[in-house]
C-alpha cells in the first residue's frame, strides 16, 4: 500500500491536471484504499480471489511506470482486412489512425481532465479512475457508419514487469450511427496487472458490435469492465474470446434504458494449464420490450478454472422483457473446475426469462459414433469440441471478424 501512495503522487505529478480533476482522482483513490483488491469474501469475487491471485503471481506490484515507448511488435497487427487503429503501447497511446473515415464524423479527444459525478462502481474502477494515464474518447456523429472496423490494440513489451496499467476508453454513438470495434490484446510482457474500463453510450437506433479478444498466451492478470447504456431501439452485440491471459475477468454491465433496445453477449472461454478466467454479466432491463441474449461456452483442460456469473435484472416497469441466458462447460481433465452463478431477479410479471447451465464431459456415445465412422479418438474429440465452441462463434454477425476468430481458435473448415 505504501508503494501505491508514492506511485499515486507520481502519477498526479506527471499528468498536469486541473484541480477538480485531482480531487476527483483523490476521491477515487481513497475509495480503492478503503477496499483494496477484492477477495473472495466479496460476493462478486466469490470464485476468483483477486487479492490472492495478484499476490501469488506478481511481486512488488508498481502502479506507475515511465517506460520509454519501445518498438511496436508488428506481428500483433491484423493484416486480414483494412481497419482503423488506436494503439496503446504499455498503457500509453502511441498511434491513432482513422484514415478510412470522414474526419468531421468521427471525433477523437483525449483530455485527461475528468470530473465525472459518476457513482462508485467497484474498487477496481475507482483504481482506474485514480491512476489512468491515457484516455481516449471516440464520438461517432449522427447517421454515420464507419467504413472499416476499429481495432483498439493493447500491446505490452517485454520491458514491462510487475506494473499496473490502467486504460480507459469512452465510445459514444450518436443517433443512428454504427461501429464495429475489436479490442485486441497483444501481450509480450509478463506478470502485470492490466485494468481496462470502457464506457459505451449508444443512442437511439445506433448499433455497436464489440469483440473482445484475448488470444495470446501470457502471464498477465487482467480485469476489464464494460458499462453499456442503450437507448431506444439500439443494439449492442458483444463477443468475448477469452483464452490468453493467466487470469482474466470480463465484467459487462448493460443497461437497457429504453424501449426495443437489445443486448447480446456471447463468448467462449478456452483454457489450458492453470489459467483462470471469468465472465460476469449484469443485464438490467429497465424499460418495456427489451431483449437480452447470452450464450457462454467454456472448454477447460489441465488445471484450468472457468467461471460464469450472469445476472438478469428485470425492473417492474420492464414488461414484455425477453431474457435468455445459457452457459455450457466442458470439463476435459480431472483437475478442472467450473463454477457458475446464473441469476435472475425479476419484478415484472409479463416477462419471458429463462436460463440454463450445464457442465460435464464429452458425450461418450458421440465419440463412439464418430470413431465407428473411422475417426481416431483424438480427431473425434477435436471435432466435438470445435462444434461445441462454434455454436457461440456462429453468433458473430460480421463475417470478416467471425473468420478471424475462427482462425485464432484453430477451427479449419
Amino acid at each position: 500500500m505504501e508503494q501505491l501512495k508514492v506511485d499515486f503522487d507520481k502519477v498526479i505529478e506527471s499528468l498536469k491536471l486541473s484541480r477538480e480533476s485531482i480531487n476527483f482522482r483523490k476521491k477515487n483513490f481513497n475509495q480503492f484504499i478503503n477496499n483494496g483488491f477484492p477477495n473472495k469474501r466479496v460476493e462478486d469475487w466469490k470464485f476468483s480471489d483477486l487479492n490472492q491471485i495478484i499476490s501469488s503471481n506478481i511481486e512488488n506490484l508498481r502502479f506507475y511506470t515511465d517506460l520509454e515507448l519501445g518498438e511496436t511488435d508488428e506481428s500483433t497487427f491484423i493484416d486480414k482486412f483494412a481497419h482503423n487503429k488506436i494503439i496503446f503501447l504499455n498503457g500509453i497511446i502511441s498511434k491513432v489512425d482513422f484514415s478510412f473515415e470522414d474526419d468531421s464524423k468521427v471525433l477523437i479527444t483525449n483530455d485527461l481532465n475528468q470530473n465525472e459525478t459518476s457513482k462508485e462502481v467497484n474498487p477496481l474502477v475507482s483504481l482506474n479512475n485514480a491512476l489512468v494515464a491515457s484516455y481516449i474518447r471516440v464520438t461517432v456523429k449522427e447517421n454515420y457508419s464507419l467504413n472499416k472496423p476499429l481495432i483498439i490494440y493493447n500491446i505490452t513489451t517485454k520491458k514491462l514487469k510487475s506494473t499496473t496499467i490502467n486504460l480507459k476508453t469512452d465510445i459514444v454513438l450518436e443517433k443512428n450511427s454504427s461501429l464495429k470495434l475489436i479490442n485486441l490484446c497483444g501481450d509480450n510482457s509478463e506478470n502485470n496487472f492490466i485494468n481496462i474500463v470502457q464506457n459505451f453510450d449508444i443512442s437511439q437506433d445506433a448499433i455497436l458490435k464489440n469483440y473482445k479478444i484475448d488470444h495470446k498466451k501470457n502471464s498477465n492478470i487482467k480485469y476489464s469492465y464494460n458499462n453499456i447504456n442503450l437507448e431506444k431501439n439500439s443494439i449492442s452485440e458483444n463477443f468475448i474470446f477469452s483464452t490468453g491471459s493467466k487470469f482474466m475477468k470480463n465484467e459487462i454491465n448493460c443497461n437497457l434504458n429504453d424501449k426495443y433496445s437489445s443486448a447480446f453477449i456471447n463468448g467462449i472461454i478456452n483454457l489450458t494449464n492453470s489459467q483462470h478466467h471469468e465472465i460476469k454479466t449484469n443485464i438490467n432491463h429497465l424499460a418495456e420490450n427489451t431483449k437480452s441474449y447470452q450464450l457462454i461456452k467454456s472448454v477447460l483442460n489441465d488445471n484450468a478454472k472457468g467461471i460464469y456469473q450472469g445476472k438478469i435484472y428485470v425492473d417492474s416497469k420492464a414488461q414484455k422483457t425477453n431474457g435468455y441466458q445459457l452457459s455450457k462447460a466442458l470439463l476435459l481433465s480431472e483437475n478442472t473446475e467450473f463454477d457458475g452463478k446464473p441469476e435472475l431477479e425479476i419484478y415484472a410479471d409479463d416477462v419471458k426469462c429463462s436460463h440454463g447451465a450445464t457442465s460435464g464431459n464429452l458425450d461418450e456415445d458421440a465419440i463412439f459414433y464418430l470413431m465407428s465412422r473411422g475417426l481416431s479418438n483424438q480427431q473425434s474429440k477435436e471435432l466435438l469440441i470445435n462444434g461445441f465452441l462454434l455454436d457461440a462463434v456462429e453468433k458473430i454477425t460480421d463475417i470478416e471478424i467471425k473468420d478471424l476468430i475462427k482462425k485464432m481458435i484453430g477451427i479449419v473448415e
Partner: protein
Amino acid sequence: MDAREKEIEKLKDYKYGFSTDIENTRAPKGLNEEVIKFISNIKKEPKWMLDWRLKAFERLKQLKEPNWQKPKYPKIDYQGLYYYSAPKSMDDKPKSLDELDPKLLETYKKLGIPLQEQARLNGIAVDAVFDSVSVATTFKGELNKKGIIFCSMSEAIREHPELVKKYLGSVIPLTDHYFATLNSAVFTDGSFVYIPEGVRCPMELSTYFRINATETGQFERTLIIADKGSYVSYLEGCTAPMRDENQLHAANVELIALDDAEIKYSTVQNWYPGDKDGVGGIYNFVTKRGLCKGKNSKISWTQVETGSAITWKYPSCILKGDNSVGEFYSIAITNNHQKADTGTKMIHLGKNTKSKIISKGISAGFADNTYRGLVDIARNADNARNFTQCDSLLMGNKCGAHTVPYIKNKNSSSNIEHEATTSKISEEQLFYCNQRGLNQEEAVSLIVNGFCKEVLQQLPMEFAVEAQKLVGISLEGSVG
C-alpha cells in the same frame, strides 16, 4: 368496522389464528446461561447435555447474525424472548391421552390433527409439539413392537442417550451458523426417530408444531436416524396464532441415512404469515440437513411453504455414501408482504451420487420469492449427476421472483444441468377455464395446482389433499 368485526375478518383469512388460554410455565425472559440451565434442569437432562448446550452458547457469543440474505428484517431482540414455555399441566406429565388438558385436545382438534381416533383411522403416528414441549406421542405401542423409537427429544435424551450422543450435532455441528447454534444452546423439544436395521416403518410418522404463547421463540430439534436398509416417511406441519409481533422459529432438523436406508421428509409449513400490510407473522429460520452416510442411501425433502412472514431455509443433502441419492421438491407461495428465501444444497462427495431439485415459486401481492441453491461436486465425486429445475410464477408487478443458483463442479466425469424459467398465468389459460364455467379464483387455483403438480405428487396422500387446498387459500384475492 368495530374491533370485533375486524377480529372476525382476520380470522377468515387464517383459520389457525386462534390462541388457546392455557397456563404456561415459562423460563425467565432473555438469553443467558441461567436460562439454558433452567431449560436443561426442567427437562431433567443429564450433565453431558447441559455441557453441550453451554458449549454451543459459548460459540454463539462469537458469532454474528448473517445478513447476506435477500429478505431483510428488523433486528431481533434476543433478550426480549422467552426461550421456554410449556403448558402448566405438563408439570406432572399425563400418563395417557385421556389425562391431557381437554383444552389442548380442543386446540389440536381445531387444527385437524388426528391425535386420537383419527390417528388410528389415518394410520399416522403423531408427535405434537405445543410451544416448546412435546405433548403426546400416539401409536407408540405398535411402533415399539417393530423396535422403532418415536418419541420426544427430551425423552430420547433420557432413555436413549447412546443414540443421541452419537448422532446429535453430527450433521449440524455446534459450530454451524448463528441460528443453528442458537438452537443447539436453547432447543426445547422436538421429535426423535430411530428405525432399526431392515425395518420398513409401517406408517407415516408425523409431528405438529404450534406456537401458542406470546413473545416465545420455538426452537425444536428433530433427529431422525434410519439404520441400514430401513425406510421411514416423516411429516411435519406447523401453525401459529395471529399476533402483531413477529415471532422467531429457529429449528434444527438432522437426518442420517445409513447403508441402503431411505428417509422421506415432508413439510407443510403454514405459520401465520402476518396480515395484509405485513404486520406480524413468524420468522421461520430453520436449518435442515440430511446426511446420506451409507452406500445406496437416499434422502428426499418435500416442502410446501405457504406461511411465515419470512421463510429462510435450505433443506440440504450431504451425499457422502457412494451411490447415494438426494432429492428436493419445493413449493413456496408468497402473498401480500411475505418473503421467502429458500432452496437447497446438494453436496456431492461420494461416487455415482445423484441429486434432483425441483422448485416452484409463486409470488403475488408485494411478496418476494427467492430460490437460492448450491450444487457442489467435489473432486472425488466421480459420475455425479445433478438436475435442477426452478420455475417461478408471478402475479402482478409489485412482487418479485428471483433465482440464485450456485454451481460448483470440480469433477470432469460429472454432469450438471440447471434450468429456470419465469412466467405468468397466461390470458389464454384463464380464458379457457372461465369459458368452462370456473370463476377467476377457481381458475387460478386450478392452474397453480397444475404448476405445482410435480411437487404435490411427492407428498403422502393425506397431506397432498391438505396442501392442495392450502395452495388455493394462500392465493385468494391475489388475482382479479
